[in-house]
């Protein structure tokens, strides 16, 4: 079976699965944040994604689903990850319209809109040792796979791999944004927590679309 469309149900399953993976890795995310931050990234993400899950049944369209998820993150997380992940999903929702499924291209367009919003909010660049370092290569890989003729599921798997590679690449970097930047050179040698939680977004997506 070759998937060319992503359905509303799959998107809901995606966010549900994202919440599960975050919950399972809560302590790990917090450990990463302890080293170069303030030891709350796991709790922040778990609180926010759990809240998102409680609203998944309310939406009948893709835009409503994603906007509500984004707003829920903004209003329940706080900190840095709340506004950023929240903006990502809200802007994705704004880009899709009131549809019930997305083609690969439409999904890609939404991702780009979301990432742009996030970058504008966070005033970040690639290489600043943030979640952007996982999100950007993931979305690029997604586009490249689609361009290569892959179906949406295969494209999400490429995206997940690229996200992981992007995450790993944050380790040697010196942080230039966020709390880790206060550390200067001492931030090098540690994996970025936000880049790590970003990989779960694509792991969850690959699983949700694959099933």
């Amino acid at each position, binding site marked *: 079976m070759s998937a060319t469309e992503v359905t509303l149900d799959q998107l809901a399953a995606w966010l549900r699965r994202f919440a599960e993976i975050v919950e399972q890795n809560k*302590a790990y995310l*917090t450990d990463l944040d*302890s*080293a*170069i*931050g*303030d*030891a*709350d990234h*796991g*709790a*922040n993400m778990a*609180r926010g994604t759990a809240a998102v899950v409680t609203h998944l049944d309310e939406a009948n369209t893709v835009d409503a689903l994603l906007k509500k998820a984004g707003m829920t993150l*903004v*209003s*329940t*997380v*706080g*900190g*840095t*990850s*709340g*506004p*950023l992940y929240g903006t990502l999903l809200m802007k994705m929702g704004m880009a899709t319209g009131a549809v019930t499924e997305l083609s690969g291209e439409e999904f890609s367009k939404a991702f780009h809109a979301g990432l742009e919003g996030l970058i504008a*909010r*966070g005033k970040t660049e690639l290489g600043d040792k943030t979640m952007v370092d996982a999100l950007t290569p993931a979305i690029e890989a997604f586009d490249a796979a689609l361009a290569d003729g892959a179906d949406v599921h295969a494209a999400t798997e490429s995206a997940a791999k690229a996200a992981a590679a992007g995450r790993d690449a944050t380790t040697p970097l010196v*942080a*230039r*944004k*966020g*709390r880790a*930047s*206060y*550390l*200067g050179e*001492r931030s090098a040698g540690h994996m970025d927590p936000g880049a790590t939680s970003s990989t779960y977004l694509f792991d969850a997506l690959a699983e949700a679309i694959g099933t």
Partner: protein
Amino acid sequence: MKKLINNPDNVIADALKGIAASDKDVRVDFENRVIYRATPKDGGKVAIISGGGSGHEPMHGGFVGTGMLDAACAGEVFTSPTPDQMLAATTTVDNGAGVLHIVKNYTGDVMNFEMAAELAADAGIEVATVVVADDVAVQDSLYTAGRRGVGTTVLLEKIVGAAAEEGGDLASIQALAQKVADNGRSMGMALTSCTVPSAGKPTFDLPENEMEIGIGIHGEPGRHREPIGDAHSVAEQLVQPILADLDFTGAPVIAMLNGMGGTPLIELYVMYAEVIALLEDAGVKVERNLVGNYITSLEMAGCSLTLLRADDEMIRLWDAPVQSAGLRWGL
């Protein structure tokens, strides 16, 4: 983890109940987690709002009261509050004269307050913002998030709160706030780590004989670690980077020697004696001071020094009456 709490996920909600029960001068909005003055000042007073992650008590909720804040938003432990909270607070306290947001320079705080200010502006409320970025431990650069906002926030909330009480308009209050922010510097250190309740273990391990110089109030690592020195040498490591960053001579100075939460008061007094001796040697004239726990980091043992290069007007506003759980005089 040794803590007097119930469920780690309910610490903020539970603590707000205790604040409401103990302090008759505030009113707590439990849903939005905002602490307000029980009796708001009426008339066209500019309203002053602050907020941030919890775990720094008495900051900010303990500074709500006559002569200081009109409202404070409590985030999760070490996590900035959400835009919804700040919007609720902003809407509630606005008297028509506008609202000042006091923000500490952390990416999360800045973004969440920014979103709240956008939403408030949309609702027709005039919002001005001051960002405190006073931590000299952080090597500043155009390409980073800048310096952290720490102790100067306390002094700023007091001074600006007094100015608002006197009836200054939003533009003059914002200008004053910026002046205070520009003239305050801080430096902190830790002997032990804090433990975020939801994390359940210390944020960092610090060997029995080591201290961390330049620590952040969220347990963010500082400049470096070194063997614990005596109070005199620790004082040097706090005073020197501050004096190297800004000239504090030739103006009245307000000093705050702040405990991080787990430091006995007797040690703060020992430290203050060392600090004041160093400042005197450097020709710095401390006219007013605070010694105690004002901007804490849960149970962290350690301290921070804040110096504000003040002027006569700031000193006058400092001396003005204040009545809050955390600061109280002249009333």
